[in-house]
């Protein structure tokens, strides 16, 4: 557990006045508040540190203890143990809402001050919904090709989810009421699950369309033929037209990825033909090509 210099966190010196602390805290809170910095984990982390520093430095009792024992927090723990009996008799301090998961304090804070009291301590008590939880679920592309059920564990709670086919990488879904418990009797928060889709196939996905480059032999490109092509739901037989050029694109309708929450609807599979020019020839093949050359081909 590392010592945290709360003065440094707020950009203050040890002799900062109460008004300096308040002013500086407000300034930094406005800059790093999670509601003003959506999807910014760094800002959220910084906000938590600022919040924790303010929690200690704006409370004269806590500040005194921090100034006295801060650098020797292990001794402060002993100090706490000695006072624990007295403290248990006192009624607990009010817990006020912090918003957006900002109330989890560092181990250093917990060691020095025990249970957390939350952001904005000392102000009016507020009844509010619990904090929202965020979780990441890693799935493969073939997993999300079909609708399936999955059980995930969040904060020791098992949640059975139906994951619809066609979920996108980075897509977030909300599971109502599976967040943190409500504060002062408020409703629970929600659980937000963000999907991280790992592509375990040879296809490239863009929305509902799939892309793939396939190689076709030179003779098939020139003379035409049929080939078997892999799709995500099996092989399909494909006719190659005689005289197919390199980089020819073919669209296989309905052979792409399922459309999210639109059962039975699929995107397309777009194939890019790459004509395979042979680099090594047998003697016989070489003679045949020479014979072709003589025909001015």
């Amino acid at each position, binding site marked *: 557990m590392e010592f945290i210099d709360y003065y440094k966190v707020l950009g203050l010196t040890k002799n900062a006045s109460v008004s300096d602390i308040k002013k500086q805290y*407000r300034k930094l*809170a*406005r800059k790093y*508040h999670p*509601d*003003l910095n*959506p*999807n910014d984990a760094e800002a959220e982390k910084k906000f938590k540190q600022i919040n924790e520093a303010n929690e200690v430095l704006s409370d004269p009792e806590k500040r005194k203890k921090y100034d006295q024992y801060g650098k020797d927090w292990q001794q402060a723990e002993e100090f706490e143990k000695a006072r624990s009996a007295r403290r248990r008799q006192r009624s607990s301090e009010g817990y006020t*809402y912090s*918003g*957006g998961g900002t109330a989890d304090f560092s181990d250093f804070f917990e060691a020095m001050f025990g249970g957390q009291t939350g*952001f*904005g301590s000392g*102000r*009016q008590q*507020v*009844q*509010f*919904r619990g904090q929202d939880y965020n979780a990441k679920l890693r799935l493969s592309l073939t997993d999300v090709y079909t609708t399936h059920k999955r059980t995930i564990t969040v904060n020791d709670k098992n949640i059975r989810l139906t994951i619809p086919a066609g979920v996108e*990488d*980075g897509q977030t879904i909300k599971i109502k009421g599976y967040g943190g418990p409500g504060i002062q009797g*408020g*409703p629970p928060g929600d659980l937000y699950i963000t999907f991280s889709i790992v592509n375990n196939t040879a296809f*490239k*996905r*863009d*929305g509902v369309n799939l*892309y793939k*480059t396939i190689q076709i032999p030179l003779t098939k490109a020139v003379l035409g033929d049929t080939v078997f092509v892999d799709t995500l739901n099996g092989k399909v037989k494909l006719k190659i037209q005689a005289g197919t050029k390199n980089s020819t694109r073919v669209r296989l309708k309905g052979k792409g990825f399922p459309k999210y929450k639109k059962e039975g609807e699929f995107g397309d599979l*777009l194939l*890019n033909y790459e004509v395979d020019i042979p680099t090594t020839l047998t003697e016989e093949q070489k003679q045949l090509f020479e014979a072709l050359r003589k025909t001015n081909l």
Partner: protein
Amino acid sequence: MHSGKFISIKTLCKIHKVEESFVYTLHEYDILELRQEREETWLHEDTLPLLEKMVRLNRDLNINPEGLQAVHVLLQRVHGLQQELLTVKRKLDALDMYF
């Protein structure tokens, strides 16, 4: 028109300990959409997180309604740009593979 559940402003303000006038002010500033029915004012459940965000910004950072309106507009723009960036990134990845 919205489908889903609506929450009475009176109940909501009682539970969340928010002044009703604050909610109406947010409506006046085009931040929240409210609905009048059966002589009561209602908020759609999907709008609840937005109201909570505005309450937090007001309480935590002392931002007044004018400031909240500006923040709301800018956050919508940030969200739009983040989505656009994500789409463009995905398209670029797809093009990298395709060509």
